[in-house]
């Protein structure tokens, strides 16, 4: 077995607590931070985003982090890359690390791409001549030769991302910390990058990567790590971790335990309901999604704006917003229950979704309840149960778009095939059906 290249030992990260009423102490603390007397501008007593994570990645090994948005994947990567200071725990890296988390990181704005690559190469232990040589090679690979002699500040976002990937893969670092930013920014180029992974592993590099694309995770990595609420829920063979990760379920967030000092409202209850109004245990494609929320308010709020949205791995996909429809209660006070039902929404099977909620005051700016993930669920069903019977459908639907919609193909010979939500065989949304699906 090869030696450990990246060791994360008991990593925890807590966010600084929000603005407190004790303005003087927070000002003094900030002043002390600026003066170099304290390492943090605010006490790290806020929400825990990474909780006691132990992780080892060996040379020539790749580990893929999966988890819903906001589960702490990127924070863990930032800590592993040395970009974010952990509240507790230690990071050990053998042979230098490089990271692609935010493509803007690590570039001198007025130096050219080539000069920046030499600077980064030198910082990872390469000689100047070797760095220059590799800069040429990587420019060919990432197809930015025309840009290489221009200052980095002139680079468009996609070009900068390509340059950042090139630096990650081609310069001297042995440990590569890779957030899958190419997923959104440059999907075509991403395919080329993913195809390079076996070569990088053969060179003895260790890769820690985070992605929302579970379909690709299955293809590129034999090891997956499932993170949930800052903790490692499962670490092992990709197929078994993903099987657990994509098990159909509905999870409701913990309720606000106590009143925060400056809070106007707190969540008293959250329920996700099925079409019969019972607590949902699983949603299948095509099921209506009902969200019931009970708020407890300390003061009366006139004409509030409620927002409920459902987000997939790449961000919100549908939203019920009183900013759009203007349908507002005259006032809310004490305990207030509201329900929102999303009808005719066909979510893709075997995908994770989160439900977000926020309330604003009549001015539309003042926050009554901050935007918060109140629940998450994994849809049941399969490609076949949705009427997709092609041999590749089951694998491809994993990392595919989060919503399905009616469509048809028009070809020279007329309509060859159409897909409509009505043709879905997925007419089951009971716990029994979940069991059937698992079988």
């Amino acid at each position, binding site marked *: 077995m090869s030696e450990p290249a990246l060791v994360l030992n008991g990593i925890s990260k807590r*966010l600084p607590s929000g603005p407190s009423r004790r303005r003087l102490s927070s000002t003094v603390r900030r002043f002390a*931070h600026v*003066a170099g007397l304290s*390492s943090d501008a605010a006490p790290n007593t806020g929400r825990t985003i990474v909780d006691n994570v132990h992780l080892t990645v060996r040379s020539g090994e790749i580990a893929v982090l999966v988890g819903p948005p906001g589960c702490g994947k990127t924070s863990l990567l930032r800590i592993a890359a*040395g970009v974010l200071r952990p509240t507790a725990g230690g990071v050990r890296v053998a042979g230098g690390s490089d990271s692609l988390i935010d493509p803007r990181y690590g570039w001198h*704005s007025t*130096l050219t791409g080539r000069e920046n690559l030499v600077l980064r190469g*030198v*910082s990872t232990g390469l000689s100047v001549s070797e760095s220059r040589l590799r800069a040429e090679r990587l420019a060919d690979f990432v197809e930015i030769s025309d840009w290489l002699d221009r200052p980095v500040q002139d680079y468009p976002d996609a070009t900068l991302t390509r340059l950042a990937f090139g630096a990650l893969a081609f310069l001297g670092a042995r440990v590569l910390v890779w957030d899958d930013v190419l997923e959104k920014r440059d999907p075509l180029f991403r395919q080329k990058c993913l195809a390079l992974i076996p070569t990088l592993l053969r060179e003895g590099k260790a890769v820690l990567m985070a992605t929302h694309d579970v379909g690709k995770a299955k293809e590129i990595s034999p090891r997956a790590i499932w993170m949930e609420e800052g903790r490692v829920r499962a670490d092992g063979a990709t197929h078994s971790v993903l099987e657990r990760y994509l098990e159909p379920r509905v999870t409701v967030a913990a309720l606000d335990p106590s009143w925060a000092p400056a809070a106007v409202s707190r969540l008293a209850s959250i329920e996700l309901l099925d079409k019969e109004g019972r607590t949902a245990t699983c949603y299948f494609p095509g099921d209506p999604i009902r969200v019931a929320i009970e708020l407890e308010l300390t003061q009366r709020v006139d004409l509030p704006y409620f927002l409920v949205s459902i987000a997939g791995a790449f961000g919100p996909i549908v939203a019920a917003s009183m900013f759009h429809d203007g349908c507002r209660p005259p006032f809310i006070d004490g305990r207030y229950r509201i329900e929102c039902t999303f009808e005719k929404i066909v979510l893709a099977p075997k995908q994770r979704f989160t439900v977000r909620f926020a309330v604003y005051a009549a001015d539309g700016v003042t926050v009554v309840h901050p935007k918060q993930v109140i629940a998450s669920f994994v849809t049941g069903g399969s490609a076949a149960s949705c009427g997709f019977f092609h041999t590749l459908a089951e694998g491809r639907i994993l990392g595919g778009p989060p919503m399905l919609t009616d469509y048809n193909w028009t070809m020279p010979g007329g309509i060859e095939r159409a897909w409509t939500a009505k043709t879905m065989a997925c007419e089951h949304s009971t716990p029994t059906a979940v069991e059937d699906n698992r079988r």
Partner: protein
Amino acid sequence: MTAPTDALSAFALLSKGCLRRELGRAPIRALWKHILLPIAIVAFVSVLDTGAPLRDRWPPLAAAGAIWLLFANSVNQGGMMLWHERWLLRQAVVPPALLLAAATLVPLALFAVHLSLVHLALLASALPRGGAGVETLLGGGIAAAFGLGAGIFAARVTEVRPTFTLMLPKLILASLVLTPVFYPLSALDGLKGAWCVANPLCVATELGRAGMLLHVDPLPRHAVGIACASSSAILCWGLLTLRGHSFVWTDEHV
């Protein structure tokens, strides 16, 4: 980056980047901002002053102005480079101290240009030139150290409160009013001693004048020592904060 040659290569690249940022990217703007505008201001203020013959008015102003500009450039292009290039520092590609060292070359290069211009002008006017160059260097050293230290703190404040970038030019301009550039140190009268202790730039500008010209106001006793100590202390404190913390705070302010 362990070998000294690596650090030297990185330093050379960073210096190139810093010089290009301030001078190379927009040379006409740089010429206006760093040469023509200061000359225009010195000429304008000299014409306004009616107390002495024109021939005697501009040299003290130019000498003190060069020192004050070194301070202002050390803040803006020296210490504040840690903020301007924060994306570079966030990935820890280079240590902040190395970037700061490279950035310091910009104000020093501009100071050399300003000094040369003052000396050329004195030569052309056939005015008597002053005493020891060491006094100019000492004055410049105080201004640069004070400016770099203040610039590091300005960068740190900006990270915590980004709107500080809007306030910084006003603060630098205030320092121009609080420093005897447009007026002689003797104009402060009874406050002279206290002012020199409170503001190291007073001593720096006077030393600059002494280095370049013959007639200068005598400095209060121990003023030079106090100014050297206070500007060094500010710079050292700033450098120590670089050593203790990486410049990655914004991530902490989610």
